């Protein structure tokens, strides 16, 4: 096993990896930008190296600086986390050239699965179901028209190089096709410097269900079951769970999706961890979407249900160990659900809300896991994505997991910045959500039908008024420091004055 590993990431995932390294008695090396000098991952790591100014293009995306830090700190391997350089085949290759192990699949596997069109073709050839659509970019309008007619409207245009919804257009009738291709292509060009778009059938109200896979250097490949990640806002997942409430009722679906995922992995000579994403319709048909060739944000829900530590597993695989289990050893127990707690304001169009965290109370107790990257007094930088922490709950049944998540959310306080904590409490209380009726349309639908909170009970108003008055008196006393205010006996601070 490695003795020294560099973590080429920041935030909660860097903390997660540093924790795994500590548990394995491997020395952890953090890297940080200007904004992250005091970040939690730097505080918790054994070693730390500055790699540049705050913008990620000048720090966390700088292959040269990261390799330099790795050499200086004599790192034997680099864990890229997710995002940043994690799916960058060039980075993986540069690590290999520098004699450092990249903790992830080979540059070749990353390349073969990195382009959506290439991955789609590979999946189709491997015998995995794909969404009906074009294999090549839709450049010729006549051929695009013929194909769209053959697939049947509505169709979806997607950027070949893309992600995050950029370069995506839904087309309902043929008359809109040409203009939509033009728009989507120019948007994709701007976003990814690659204007290629392709055509796919629209799956109405699909579920997003993905399969976690793991493979070693010796050709052993297994799947660790599915996660349902249908709850998305602007193509960003916000709640994930394992198992999927849809698949849980259809055990044959897990086996079929698992087999499809493994076909793709085999075809790409895949090793280490990866995730094969699918869309599923309400008839339990599923279609290959894409492969994420790295650790997934939502990996904790799989960990809680299978009992494996996926980050430790990544390290073992990268160090050349064989998978310590076979497919038949994998068992799923209970239910896990995750909320991505972010610095954003649900009451104000989900605007990002960077800034200083004034107070922090983190939940714990039975069935609750918190993977956090922040601390009280930490200033959440505006340079990176707004994810603060992942709150995960496990329960023997889905309902127990939801109730524990609700309980944990009720204890979770982050003040000084806005977060989506209260918004999650609303979703987790929604009857459709509780019934497991999910789709990627769920969040937009929910936002459209969301009702304002009921007026608070008058007694709550009174309690707030009393606290405010006490606070006011305290402030005045501090300010005046002379002459005690006669705020009445209930305002006395301290103990034992409850008299009713």
């Amino acid at each position, binding site marked *: 096993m490695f003795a020294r590993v560099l973590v080429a990431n920041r935030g909660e995932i860097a903390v997660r990896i540093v924790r795994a390294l500590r548990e394995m008695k491997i020395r952890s090396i953090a890297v940080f930008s200007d904004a992250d000098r005091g970040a939690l991952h730097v505080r918790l790591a054994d070693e730390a190296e500055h790699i540049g100014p705050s913008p990620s293009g000048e720090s966390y995306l700088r292959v040269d600086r990261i390799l330099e830090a790795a050499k200086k700190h004599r790192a034997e391997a680099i864990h890229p986390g997710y995002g940043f350089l994690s799916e960058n085949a060039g980075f993986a290759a540069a690590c290999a050239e520098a004699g450092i192990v990249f903790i992830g699949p080979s540059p070749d596997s990353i390349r073969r699965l990195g382009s959506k069109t290439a991955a789609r073709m590979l999946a189709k050839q491997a015998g995995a179901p794909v969404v009906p659509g074009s294999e090549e970019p839709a450049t010729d309008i006549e051929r695009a028209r013929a194909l769209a007619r053959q697939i049947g409207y509505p169709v979806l245009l997607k950027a070949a190089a893309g992600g995050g919804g950029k370069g995506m257009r839904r087309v309902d009738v043929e008359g809109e096709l040409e203009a939509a291709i033009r728009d989507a292509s120019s948007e994709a060009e701007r976003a990814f410097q690659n204007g290629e778009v392709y055509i796919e059938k629209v799956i109405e109200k699909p579920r997003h269900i993905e399969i976690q896979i793991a493979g070693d250097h010796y050709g052993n490949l297994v799947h660790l079951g599915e996660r349902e990640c249908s709850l998305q806002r602007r193509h960003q997942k916000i709640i994930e769970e394992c198992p999927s409430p849809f698949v849980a009722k259809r055990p044959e679906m897990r086996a079929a999706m698992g087999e499809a995922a493994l076909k793709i992995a085999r075809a790409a000579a895949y090793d280490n961890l990866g995730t094969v994403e699918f869309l599923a319709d309400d008839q339990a048909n599923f279609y290959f979407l894409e492969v994420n060739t790295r650790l997934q944000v939502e990996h904790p829900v799989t960990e809680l249900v299978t009992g494996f530590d996926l980050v430790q597993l990544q390290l073992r695989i990268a160090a050349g160990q064989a998978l310590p289990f076979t497919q038949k050893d994998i068992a799923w127990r209970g239910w896990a659900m995750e909320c991505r707690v972010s610095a954003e304001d649900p009451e104000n169009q989900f605007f990002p809300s960077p800034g200083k965290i004034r107070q922090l109370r983190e939940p714990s107790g039975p069935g609750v896991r918190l993977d956090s990257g922040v601390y009280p007094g930490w200033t959440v930088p*505006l340079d990176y*994505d707004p994810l603060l922490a992942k709150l995960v709950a496990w329960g023997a049944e889905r309902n127990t997991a939801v109730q524990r998540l609700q309980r944990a959310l009720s204890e979770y306080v982050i003040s*000084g910045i806005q977060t989506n904590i209260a918004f999650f409490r609303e979703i987790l209380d929604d009857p459709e959500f509780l019934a497991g009726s999910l789709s990627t349309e769920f969040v937009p639908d929910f936002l459209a039908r969301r009702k304002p909170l009921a007026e608070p009970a008058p007694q709550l108003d009174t309690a707030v008024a009393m*606290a*405010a*008055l006490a606070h006011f008196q*305290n402030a005045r006393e501090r300010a005046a420091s002379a002459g005690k205010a006669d705020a009445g006996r*209930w305002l006395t601070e301290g103990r034992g004055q409850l008299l009713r």
Partner: protein
Amino acid sequence: MKWQVAVNGRSIEIDSEQLASVTQVEPGVYSVLLDGASYEIRLSETSSGLSAEVGGRRFEVEVRDPRDTSRGTRTQLGSGRQNIAAPMPGKVVRVLVNVGDAVDVGQGLVVVEAMKMQNEMKASRPGRVIEVRALAGQTVGAGDTLVVLE
């Protein structure tokens, strides 16, 4: 003595002889026991006064001192003009309106980028643009006025 406290605009009268237990348990965090129920209330000073948070709900609070007769009810911000301010620090990506434009509810005014997201600032009521302070490429702080509507 009786105190008036406005909670989200609702006026609450607190009698200083009222029986309850209020204890500051952490800085700015109060435990209130009232009629048997237990509340935990977090207070913080904001630019506009005092803000309270209970169980994920936010309340704007104003305490009126009964001995300070000079201080009347806080006047509302003028309803004729509206300053569209940046809700967070970021970079102005695009300005979508010009001075003199008539805007509708929901119409985009300025696009600000922060935390890897582009966020469109929208008009919350119809009006006319009387001033544009935002410049594409400019870095803005939270609360900076970007556009003024009338």
